[in-house]
C-alpha cells in the first residue's frame, strides 16, 4: 500500500497503526507516525467522482457486497480488467470489463452464478476507484 502525504490537505486524518494479518497475531508497530487522509485515499479525482450504492451480490468475489458504497470516476479511459460502471437499460451496474478473443467487449460478474453480459445498448460511464462499508449502527 502506498499513501500520498499532503500536510495541507483538507479532510479527516486518521492515524495508521500498521498492517494486521487476519488469523495471525501480528505486531502492528511499523510506521506508527503515519496518518491517512481518508478522502484522498478513497478519492483520486474529486472533481469527477460520484457515489453509488450496491444492490445484489454479483460482484462479491471482487469484495464488493450488497449495501456497499462505491466511488467511481466518470471517465472514458478504461481498460479490460477494470471494474466499470455501466449504464444499461435497467440502470447502473458494476462489472469487470472484459474482451473476447475476437475483440468484443463484455461485462463480467465476480460471481459464478451470473452470466456474462453483452449489452446491446448502454454506455460505460466510469471506473470504480474505491469501495467502503461501515459496521456502526
Amino acid at each position, binding site marked *: 500500500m502506498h499513501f500520498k502525504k499532503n500536510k495541507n490537505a483538507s479532510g479527516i486524518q486518521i492515524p495508521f497503526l500498521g498492517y494486521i494479518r487476519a488469523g495471525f497475531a501480528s505486531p502492528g508497530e511499523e510506521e506508527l507516525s503515519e496518518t491517512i487522509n481518508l478522502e484522498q485515499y478513497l478519492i483520486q479525482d474529486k472533481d469527477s467522482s460520484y*457515489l453509488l450504492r450496491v444492490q445484489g451480490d454479483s460482484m462479491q468475489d471482487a469484495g464488493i457486497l450488497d449495501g456497499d458504497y462505491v466511488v467511481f470516476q466518470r471517465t472514458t479511459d478504461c481498460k479490460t480488467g477494470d471494474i466499470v460502471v455501466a449504464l444499461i437499460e435497467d440502470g447502473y451496474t458494476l462489472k469487470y470489463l472484459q474482451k473476447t478473443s475476437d475483440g468484443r467487449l463484455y461485462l463480467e460478474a465476480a460471481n459464478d452464478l451470473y452470466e456474462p453480459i453483452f449489452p446491446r445498448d448502454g454506455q460505460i460511464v466510469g471506473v470504480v476507484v474505491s469501495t467502503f462499508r461501515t459496521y456502526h449502527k
Partner: protein
Amino acid sequence: MNSPRLSSIPHKSRYILHIDGDAFFASVEQAKNHKLKGKPVITGLERGIAAAFSYEAKAKGVTRGMRIGEIKKVCPEAILLDSDYEMYCIFARRMYNIVRRYTPHVEEYSIDECFADITDVTLPHGMTHAEYAFNIKKDLEMKLGITFGVGLAPNKVLAKVASKHKKPAGFTVIKKEDIVSFIKQLPIHKVWGIGGAMSMYLRQRGIETAYDFAIKDDAWMRVNQIAKPYKEIWLEFQGYFVKELSTAASPASDIGSIMKSRTFTPATSDRQFIFSQLSKNIEMACEKARFHGVSSRAITFYLKTSEFRYRSVEINLPLATSSPNELLKVVRQYFDQVYNARTLYRTSGITLRSLIEEEAVTRDLFGQSEIAESSDKVFSVVDDLNKTFGSHTVFLGSSMSALQKSDYESKHVGFRERRINIPFVGIALCM
C-alpha cells in the same frame, strides 16, 4: 467592416473562452438522476415558477418564469423539482476546478458560466488554441455528465456571442476576420452588457444590430456621449481585448440566491412546530450567507401543503441583512398570511434573494444599521462557536423544537472547501 481600426490591430490576438452550462440546473438534476435523462425537467418548484428547464421542456413550450399551473397545461408530463442549490454549487465548483487544470486565468462569472484566458498556455505539440479549447469542453462533459456551450474569441464580449451561437453542446470559434458575419444579425438588445434602457437609447439612434454599433466612429461615440462600459463593448466588437477577466475567486459569484427548505413527515398544522422549522431554515440560510460574506435585500418564504399547494410571501427588506433575528422578526409579521390552522403542511422554506457583498451594504441614515450591525457581531461569534464545537452548538431558541426532532446532522452540507462533496447518483444493480 470598413473601419480602418480593424485592419490595424496592433497587439497579438488573445484567446478567450466563454463556457456556459446548457440548462445548467436541469442538467445537474439529470446528472444526479439518470432516470430524468431525455425528459422535460423543470426546477424552481419551491418558488412556483420555472427557474430552469431542460431542452426537452423547452421543446414543449416551457418558458422562463412560467407558473406551475401553466407548465402543467403545456407540458403535462413535466417533472417539477425543488431547486437544489447545494448540488448546483458543487457542480459549479467542479466546473471551475476542471477549467483551472488547463489555465490559471479563470473568471467565475456565475453559477453556470465562466470565462478563461488560454492565450499563454503551453500548447501540446501541434495543437491549436481551438483544439485545446475543445479538449476542455470534452473533459468537462465527460467528468460532469452534462453538456456545455463553449465559445472561443479574441475577447469576452465575442466569446459570449460564440457560446450562444449554437445550443445545446455547441462549440464556436470567432476569428477576427469572421466577426462581421457573427454580429451582423445580432440584435443590439441581445448583446451581453447592454440593458433595456441602453438598447432603447441606441435604437432611437438607428442602431438595430451589434454591427450597426460596431461601425460607428469615435466622433459619433463622443457626440452621443456613450459611457465607458458601452465603449468597451464597442471596442470588443471591433476585435480589441478590453474587458479584463477578474480571476480572483469571488465567494458570492456562484450563489445567486440561497434556498433552504425542509419537508416534514407526517404533514402537520402545528403552528409552533411549522414556525420552528421555518426558523431553522432561516438560520441555515443565514449561516450560509455569512459564510459567503453576503447579505440579502429580499426574501421569499413559503409553506407547501400536504396537497402540494404553495403559499408564499415575497418581502423586500429595508436593509440588507444576514442576521436570522432580523429575518425572523420580518417572517413572524407575515407568517399568518401563509399559515392557516386548518391546513396540513409538509414543507417550509426560505430563499434569500438580491444578495450583495457585505462591504457593499449601504448604510442608512436613521440608525437601523447600528442595531443590525450589533446583532451581526453576535452572529459572527455564533459562527465561531459552531465551527469550534460543531454545528448547532448555539442556536436560536425558536429553532429548538426543530432541532430536537430532526435528522439535521446527516442532511447538513458543510463549507464547500473544507469537505469534499461527492454526489450520490443512485443504486448500482448487481443482480
